[in-house]
């Protein structure tokens, strides 16, 4: 599998922005993008990262107890 991106689905844009700040502070590259339609029917944004960063992504989210819905691999 040639997965290049992990997408963190969140309930709220505010949650995405919190994650963006956490990732920036941890040196994790990320971008807020519209939620891909095949992942959710929501009209908001999600956080896209490099899938190779998944271990650190999990660690940062867990350490901060940041709310998120799920992590999907694109």
């Amino acid at each position: 599998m040639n997965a290049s991106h992990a997408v963190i689905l969140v309930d709220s844009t505010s949650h995405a922005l919190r994650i963006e700040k956490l990732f920036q502070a941890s040196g994790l590259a990320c971008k807020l993008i519209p939620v891909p339609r095949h992942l959710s029917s929501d009209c908001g944004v999600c956080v896209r990262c490099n899938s190779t960063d998944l271990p650190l992504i999990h660690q940062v989210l867990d350490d901060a107890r940041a709310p998120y819905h799920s992590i999907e691999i694109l």
Partner: protein
Amino acid sequence: MMSGLPVPSSRTKDGAIYLDNAATSWPKPPGVAAAIVQFLEQSAANPGRSGHRMSVEAARMVYQAREEIASLFGAPDPLRVIFGQNITDAINLVLHGFLHPGDHVVTSSMEHNAVMRPLRVLESKGVSVTCVPCSPDGRLDPQQIEDAIQPKTRLIVLTHASNVCGTMLPIRLAGEIAHRHQIYLLVDAAQTAGVFPIHMEQDSIDFLAFTGHKSLYGPTGTGGLVLGTRVDHELLAPIRQGGTGSRSEHETQPGFLPDRYESGTPNSVGLAGLLAAIRWISSMGVEAIRSHEVNLCNRLLVGLAEIPGITIYGTQSASQQTATIGFNIRGVSPSTAALQLDEEFGILCRVGLHCAPAAHHTIGTFPEGCIRFGLGVFNTMDDIDQALFAIRQIAREVQ
């Protein structure tokens, strides 16, 4: 206190002195108007509704405002900062969303109608209210708060400081009492946010209601509620529902924070100004702002006390009150004095009952009310001296 920075003038275009900061602060700090214009011109898309870069940029600014509000008030989680129209909106959310028929509420006799009017509506729906009497100078004995607690008491609601005479209420002690009895504390910080240190954790505040346009020095139409860590938001029902930009596939209100309480497009333009104002407050320091206002307040209190025929309400001690001074001139009605102050002396203030009939009953000025000088951080000692000169003249005319 503001050497090295451009200081906005407390004089209007036609030279009048603004002493109505307890209603709305003016002028605003440097950078507030510019932040509003910059946001409007560059990033004013709908925050949190679309995924494009401009919408995300707008949402980023709103989130930054959440973070800085949380930091200013010692709240650990910016997602528990809920923005609304103003503090009245926030107080209504707590009172209508948290209380149920059969619940009992303890409050004080110094409250603003932002608290009393929703409580009177709730009384008609089966919520009982105990209004603990304060002393004629507006002080509240915390023991009386504790004595008023009943088995059905769920909430203590207190203003942090009187909007009529500036007297501070003992919110930290009230918070300790609330937590000891496993009930909750709502603080109305309309008159203190930004000018007094507030730390929700250390002050045991469960609900902190704030407004942006007074001592936070932001624009009107901004304000909100910060939920303390003890509050389970499942227990606080939203009082309006609608679009949030999230969970759009559902016709039911989302349950997560802050969206649960933030239906409809927020006042992002105003929040851009509020963010700039909070950054200015942080750069100046709350203690430095307070220190300047204490000096102004002290000069005014000392000067008023020397004028024959003046009655000052409240503690008459600058260190024990906000820089809001309520007083009357013997033989002159407040409304007559206000007109004279405006037209003859160029002093802008507020007189009457200040939306706080309970407080005026407490200090003995109902129904006539009083004159209120609301000082702000941009007032100067010369402003105070000019105001004292005006009061001296008016008082002399009737003696």
